[in-house]
């Protein structure tokens, strides 16, 4: 039985798709059979970030409307075994996704996979609600800005009320905070909210912190999820995040301004 994890945020452009691709890649690299589904109908770009846009033949909407089978629509990642992508439709409109249709697709996938990641569209409307409805867990992607934190708070309210788990009175959706595009220098300068403020307001457990990084831009242009770039800060931060999702206790990195003196690098770096 797969765990269904929605990657969501409310606000657009905060790094949901980047994170869904990076986390799915990381989970698969750790040997978990993983599929990542693009719920952003009309604005699909997960396939670009995953570098499989030329291999898209059928999509989620085709499957839901019975025009293609799941196996025809799923794309096997060319770098990692165990990793699959289910793209969204670029040409259909959002109404093409139905709750029953998605339930059928997920029921099918849950049997075969370990993890199902749902890359949510922005907003709090139907598309975002469909992406979260069947989730067991949520990765709430938040940037260190007031508006992003506010939207994440709103999404957390929906997770607690507008999901299948909430409606059935089951254990609530497990909520994880993922802070992305964190820039310690700008936080220090007071241009951005700091880590502790965000944690205090959202009051959920922190699963990871991804620094603002050139590597993300580079990797999405190349269509290679940043998790593959283990020389980069963002790649390492996503790997840490995946370890924590798998239950490991990994210390937080990249939340402090890096240019430390030689001394603190020599003596401060050796700790766990």
């Amino acid at each position: 039985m797969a765990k269904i994890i929605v990657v969501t945020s409310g606000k657009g452009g905060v790094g949901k798709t980047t994170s869904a691709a990076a986390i799915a890649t990381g989970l698969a690299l750790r040997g978990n059979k993983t599929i990542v589904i693009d719920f952003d109908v009309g604005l699909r770009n997960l396939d670009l970030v995953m570098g499989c846009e030329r291999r898209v033949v059928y999509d989620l909407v085709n499957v839901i409307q019975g025009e293609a089978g799941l196996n025809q629509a799923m794309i096997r990642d060319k770098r990692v075994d165990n990793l699959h992508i289910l793209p969204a439709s670029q040409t259909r409109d959002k109404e093409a996704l139905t709750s029953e249709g998605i339930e059928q697709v997920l029921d099918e996938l849950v049997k075969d996979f370990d993890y199902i990641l749902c890359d949510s569209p922005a907003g709090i409307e139907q598309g975002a609600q469909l992406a979260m409805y069947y989730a067991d867990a949520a990765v709430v992607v938040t940037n260190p800005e007031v508006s992003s934190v506010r939207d994440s708070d709103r999404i957390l309210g929906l997770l607690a009320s507008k999901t299948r788990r909430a409606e059935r009175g089951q254990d609530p959706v497990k909520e994880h905070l993922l802070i992305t595009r964190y820039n310690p220098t700008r936080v220090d300068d007071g241009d951005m909210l700091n880590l502790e403020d965000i944690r205090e307001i959202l009051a959920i457990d922190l699963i990871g912190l991804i620094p603002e990084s050139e590597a993300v831009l580079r990797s999405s242009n190349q269509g290679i999820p940043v998790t593959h770039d283990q020389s980069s800060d963002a790649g390492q931060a996503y790997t840490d995040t995946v370890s924590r999702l798998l239950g490991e206790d990994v210390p937080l990195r990249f939340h402090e301004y890096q240019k430390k003196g030689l001394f603190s690098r020599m003596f401060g770096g050796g700790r766990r």
Partner: protein
Amino acid sequence: MSLNVDRAGLAFTFKGGMLPMTVMELTSADPERIRDQLAGKLSQSPAFFQHTPVVLNVEKLDEPHLALERICAVCRAHKLLPVAVRGGPDPVKQSAWALGLGWFPPQEIKPRNLESVAADTQPAKEDTFAAARHEETPASNGGRIYRGTVRSGQQLTAPEGDLVVVGSVNAGAEVLAAGNIHVYGALRGRALAGIHGDHDASIFCRELHAELLSVAGNYKRLEDVDPRLLSQPVQVRLSDDQLSIASMS
């Protein structure tokens, strides 16, 4: 009659009593791990950590010697007061006594899991997604107790009595009560007490950032509030039909 006279001469009397007590069931003996988890909980539910007496249950641990003194210090640093130890082998009992703590024999029955009441997230149980986040309790006076964060877009009402929020009320959220409103966290959203016109209703919070405060229809917006009161614990009530906000620190 004579009994009364005798009593006046007594310095104390012993009474049997049942007090509610939080049991902290240790599953690790490592003071650092305990510290990390407490630090997380403290930031989530500061209201719980008010020199709260706790009994350290060590039955789940299989350690002949325990760094009991350090564990107690970690607890105290997080405003938990260990008053006794339950279970453990003889050396543990001896060191509890040496530290001035009581010792209880191990119990047979499992205690009710207080976790969901005390703090609202359960870390580290990675394989289940169980985590009771919000707990609703009807209060005896027709009010409500809500444990958890009231989030943007949510509205919480106690139409007949007081509303107690054990957590924060975030910006964009709204809490309303016929009676008083108590927020054991930050109040960043809107709070309206005395919604049926009770002029004696008050609002209390541990950290004031409210977008709007109202008692019986008399209100103040954030911009009307003296900036020195922001981030302070305050009580808000009516005096002469004027909303007055007083610091409680």
